[in-house]
């Protein structure tokens, strides 16, 4: 990675010329701040930067190394990387950040997933990065390496607020040994919901308290979205401003999810299987398939579970899945945005992304990092993770994401517990979501 911007290679005379003309223009169009932001900080600058971050132990080590590289360039900058756990979903992470901001302890650099992007932008917490990107020649190389949907997912009103750090989607994880034992072949790339049920039924064995299931429903907001996307619908309208649960296809998707546990009985009851618990059950051989992204791979490896592979999500009407990209942004309250930008450059460098690829965490933002042997060697069809991006839809992430997630999951829980029928539950969820979104739009 180049360590000096073009500005440092200018002669004094040229600099004065450009500064003279540029300064006049900048005043005229009001981009003085942009010019100031583009200046490369002095390598001996003394400052401290705080990061609001997420990630497992492996990812934490990767970012620690990236910070060490930053500190080689800026040895007098103290970087504190604060990790915020969020066992109850992204809503909790966003709320942790908001609560921290409300208490006046706004971090300088914010790592967030797509679920929190709009929330932080509309709350005026984040600085647009367009000026940094325009002024920094290294940005071109970075943006060329990152697929457009990943960057676009982090934009709002045409402005870029975050640089993609990594991303995840949902694919089908399957136990290759369980498939072999049951004489089931790897499903086709364009398999359907019906094919999926047939496969899951073949893999469901045993009875009562000693049952092995063909599938384990990933029961969290992100994990449920592919059932909507592959049916050509979504929980919210495409602009994420209204509930879309009055779409008959949404009800059809919910009924299908419900049927996996209650009608086809190919998936265990959903209680206690949220979060990462389902991956523990999958690695333990209790279920033969589940849905997940690239992120559980590190856990599988740590438990010496290697007999797994991935396939695209089965479709009802369209081949699709869900994806969510995470990003690095700079807080509006950051006193040293130029240094924060330099730090983000190290956090998004190819070296960092290759390390992310190697530890089996999320999918790295840079495509070139997914071409490395470390990333491709396991599972056998590791390419499915990246290739599924072409049809994937970003997870609906309005600025009131935490509230939307809470309403959606609460009603889905009621439906799965048979306290209400899918029709009743979806109608109630639509009613409540409509009110929540109306509040947002006023």
């Amino acid at each position, binding site marked *: 990675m180049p360590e000096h911007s073009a500005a440092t290679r200018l002669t004094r005379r040229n600099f004065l010329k450009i500064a003279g003309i540029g300064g006049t223009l900048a005043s005229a169009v009001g981009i003085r701040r942009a010019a100031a932001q583009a200046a490369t900080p002095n390598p001996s600058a003394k400052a401290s930067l705080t990061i609001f971050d997420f990630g497992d132990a492996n990812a934490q080590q990767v970012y620690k190394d990236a910070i060490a590289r930053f500190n080689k360039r800026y040895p007098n900058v103290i970087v504190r990387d604060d990790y915020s756990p969020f066992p*109850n979903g992204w809503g909790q992470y966003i709320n942790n950040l908001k609560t921290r901001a409300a208490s006046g302890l706004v971090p300088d650099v914010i790592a967030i997933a797509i679920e929190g992007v709009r929330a932080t932008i509309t709350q005026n917490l984040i600085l647009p990065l367009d000026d940094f990107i325009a002024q920094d020649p290294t940005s071109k190389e970075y943006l060329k390496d990152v697929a457009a949907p990943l960057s676009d997912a982090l934009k709002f009103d045409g402005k870029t607020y975050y640089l993609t750090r990594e991303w995840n989607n949902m694919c089908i994880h399957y136990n290759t040994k369980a498939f072999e034992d049951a004489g089931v072949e790897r499903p086709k790339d364009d398999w359907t919901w019906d094919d999926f049920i047939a496969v899951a039924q073949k893999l469901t064995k045993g009875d009562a*308290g000693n049952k092995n299931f063909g599938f384990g429903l990933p029961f969290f907001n992100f994990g449920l979205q592919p059932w909507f996307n592959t049916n050509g619908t979504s929980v919210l309208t495409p602009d994420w401003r209204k509930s879309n649960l009055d779409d008959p296809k949404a009800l059809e998707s919910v009924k299908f999810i419900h049927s996996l546990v209650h009608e086809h009985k190919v998936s265990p009851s959903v209680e206690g299987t949220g979060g990462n618990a389902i991956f523990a059950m999958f690695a333990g051989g*209790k279920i033969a398939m589940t849905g997940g992204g690239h992120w559980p791979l590190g856990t599988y490896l740590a438990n010496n579970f290697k007999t797994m592979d991935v396939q695209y999500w089965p479709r009802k009407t369209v081949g699709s899945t869900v994806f969510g990209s995470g990003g690095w942004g700079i807080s509006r309250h950051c006193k040293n945005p130029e240094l924060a930008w330099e730090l983000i450059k190290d956090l998004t460098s190819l070296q960092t992304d290759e390390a992310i690829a190697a530890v089996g965490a999320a999918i790295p933002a840079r495509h070139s990092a997914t071409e490395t042997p470390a990333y491709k060697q396991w599972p056998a069809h590791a390419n499915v993770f990246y290739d599924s991006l072409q049809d994937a839809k970003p997870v609906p992430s309005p600025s009131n994401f935490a509230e939307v997630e809470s309403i959606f999951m*609460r009603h889905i829980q009621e439906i799965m517990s048979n306290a209400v029928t899918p029709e009743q539950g979806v109608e109630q969820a639509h009613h409540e979501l409509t009110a929540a979104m109306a509040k947002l739009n006023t």
Partner: protein
Amino acid sequence: MKAGHREALWGFLFILPTYLGFAIFILGPVVAVAGMSFTKFDVLTGAEFTGLTNYYRLFSDERLRNVYTNTFVFTIFAVFFNVSIGLALAVLLNRRLPRLLRNFFRSVYFFPLLIAHTYVAVIWQFLYQRDTGVINYYFSLLGIAPISWLGSAAWVLPSVIIMDVWKNTGFAMIIFLAGLQNIPKDYYEAARLDGAGAVQLFLRITFPLLSPTIFFVLVIFMIGAIQVFDTIIVLTGGGPGDASRSVVIYIYEQAFQNFDLGYASTVAMTLFVIILLFTLLQFWFSRRWVHYE
């Protein structure tokens, strides 16, 4: 300064930390919450005075009715079982047992209290799982159909109460044991000489002399149960739906999920008033059955 005044000054100085702590951490927040309950307040923007709007909203909030019902059901059963089982265990362990055995049993019943709620909840989630859980596995061996412990609205509160009693009854037991050991042995010996049986000993000596301790445990457990949060949030998250959501979880979600601090404060005020009334009622009622020596 006169000696009497000096003494009074020192007295005030000694109690000052307690009063300061109370003013800063209890009274201050209560006053702030009371103030916020009349506002529309998002933590990131300013508060806007809205009068009684939040209080009117209480009456049309169906979810609030549900979470209050859950909280009362949990409180009644969790307090009843925690206190009665804790008392029974204490009476049993207060008998003459070999010291080793007595210490073993005391440790076994007290041990769950030492484990963090999060670990306990994760373990119980595995135990309770309908299709892969240990409890239903053994039930299946007995021919009992699997119970959806955490997945059905009917069973989820009993499941939470079972875990809560398993975890907390040891605390009640320890306090009762301390109370039992303060009852002079002579009373029992005298009663036995008069021909009293085990039931009479308990009803005529143990219960009256232990009544201040029972009252203390009841008040402590009742306040804790009405404010239940961590036990439920880690075991069920309040679900399925709202089936196990407590008032405090609801307040937390309104405040830090929906960022509606005004309404969250209003609900918090209702809870404050209810706990106050319940506690006053208990103190009033205690005159009839609590006997101080």
